[in-house]
Every structure is written in structure tokens, then in C-alpha cells.
């Protein structure tokens, strides 16, 4: 049973983490959520990213957000990972299973999953 009291507990757990309030987290995961992304299956990908980030205990250091059309509709669902001081990593044609691996190996482990990136995509 989910209650507002439980939500207040989450607040207490997160309130000391200044980063989440100011949006200056270590890692920002962005999912394309325009018509093209949604139709290609971006919603379950975003839901999976949120679940995995929470499960791995990374909720205070990583954010998962939505953006509009990135302009490469044929590669949707597209997931971009931004990290301060590092080059942006763009994952294409992402599925929920791929999203799990991205969180485990890249967000948690710090090593991008090269085979899922746009540079590695074979047409």
C-alpha cells in the first residue's frame, strides 16, 4: 500500500542530497519522448531506466529525463547520457533489456556499452 507517508520517507532520504535539488548530478540520462520516440517504444525504455536507477541505489546521483525529437527519428528510441567532463554517449534503437545493461555497465560501472551506441549501429 503506497501512502503519502511513504512519499515523505523518500523525501527524508533524498533531502540531504543537495545535487538532486539543483539538478547538478553526476549523470543525466535523457530519452527522446516526441511522437517518434513514443511510437517506437520509448515509454517502457524510460520506465525501465527509472526502475534500474532506483534499484541500483543511484537515485540521488543520476537523473532520468525526457526531451523532444532529437531529429534522428529512424533510430528511436534514443537515449543520451551526459556526464560532466565527458563526451555525450548516444544509444540508439534501445529496448528495455538494453536499458538494464546501460544502467548496470555505464551508469553504475562507468563504462559505456559500445555495441549499443550510434557509432556502432549497422544499417
Amino acid at each position, binding site marked *: *500500500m*503506497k501512502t*503519502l507517508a*511513504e*512519499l*515523505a520517507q*523518500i*523525501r527524508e*532520504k*533524498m*533531502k540531504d542530497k543537495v545535487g*538532486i*535539488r539543483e*539538478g547538478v548530478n553526476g549523470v543525466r540520462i535523457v530519452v527522446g*519522448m*516526441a*511522437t*517518434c520516440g*513514443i*511510437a517506437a517504444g520509448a*515509454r*517502457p525504455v*524510460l*520506465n525501465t531506466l*527509472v*526502475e534500474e*536507477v*532506483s534499484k541500483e541505489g*543511484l*537515485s540521488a546521483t*543520476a*537523473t*532520468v*529525463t*525526457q526531451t*523532444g*525529437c*532529437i*531529429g534522428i*527519428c529512424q533510430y528511436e528510441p534514443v537515449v543520451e547520457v551526459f556526464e560532466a567532463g565527458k563526451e555525450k554517449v548516444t544509444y540508439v534503437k534501445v529496448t528495455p533489456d538494453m536499458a538494464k545493461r546501460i544502467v548496470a555497465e555505464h551508469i553504475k560501472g562507468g563504462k559505456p556499452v559500445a555495441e549499443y551506441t550510434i557509432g556502432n549501429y549497422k544499417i
Partner: protein
Amino acid sequence: MKELSLNILDIAQNSFTAGATLTEIILEESADKLTIRIVDNGCGMSEDTLKQVSNPFYTTRTTRKVGLGIPLFRQAAEQTGGYITIQSTKDPVNHGTVITGVFNKSHIDFTPLGDIASTVCLLAQGCGEGDMVFTHKIEGKETVELDTRALREVLQGVPLSNPDVQLWIKAYTTQQYEK
């Protein structure tokens, strides 16, 4: 779109982009009819834009040349014998847009609503500085509701997009449907 809840997610993004401080998503469901209404107080559309929005080759985007959000929503309604209506005004005081879709549920081409709880938590994540109120009235059942204003009061600055908060919203919405 395989689920109407995906259309809702798609259309409501336009309200957020229009700078709405409040977006209401109101579903009313009886045995044979589903009405989906998206009401926002965003910047509204001009008469010229309003005439164009159902045209797939019209979009305000610059990254591509087609805009399929409204056309797909319209198709989903019309293929059940239903329809959509759009009212919008740029009036300086009462600006905003209302999009209504009426669906005949018993029609063979009715698209199921699908995973609406996933849409609700992503709407709460995507509404930015604005607020979102979701209401689903189902005949003979308890109304399902989620108001981000009430959640913000509890959260006191912790963002709605926080992954732990997101999971709470999804579970909170799902459990209301199970009542």
C-alpha cells in the same frame, strides 16, 4: 500508437511545451464510451495554427517536417466512429487549449488504453515547473486521481522526476485501479 495512453503522453507534452502551469488529463469511461480530455493553460494556438494541427505535414518543430501527434490521436478516435475537437485561444487572460477525444469502446478498431500508470508517472516527470492533474472516472468504480500539487507539498523541493518518487507515483496510481 499501440495504446491510447501513449497518445495521451504524446499530446500532453504539447501542453508542457506551451508553458502550461496546469495541465489536466480527464478520462471519463462508461461501458461503451471513453472520453479523453486534455486541458491546459498554456500559450494557446492562433486560428491559423488551429486550422493546421490535424495536417500531418504541419509542425512547429524544426528538427523534422512532419507532426503526427494530433493526426494519430484523431485517427484513433475516428476509426472507432468517434471524433476529436480542439478549442484554443491566445487570449491574454484565458489562454489555453482543450483537446477532447471521444472513442466508442465496443468498436473493433478501438485501441486499448494500455499502461496508463506508466504514462501518469512520466507526465509527472515531464511537466517541469508546471503541475499536472490526472483524473479517471470509471462508471461504477472509484475515481483514480493524481495531483502533482499535493505531491509537491509533501516533497518540499525533491523533484517529481526523482527515480524513487517516480516508482512511488506509478505504484500509487496502479493501486487505485486495483480497488
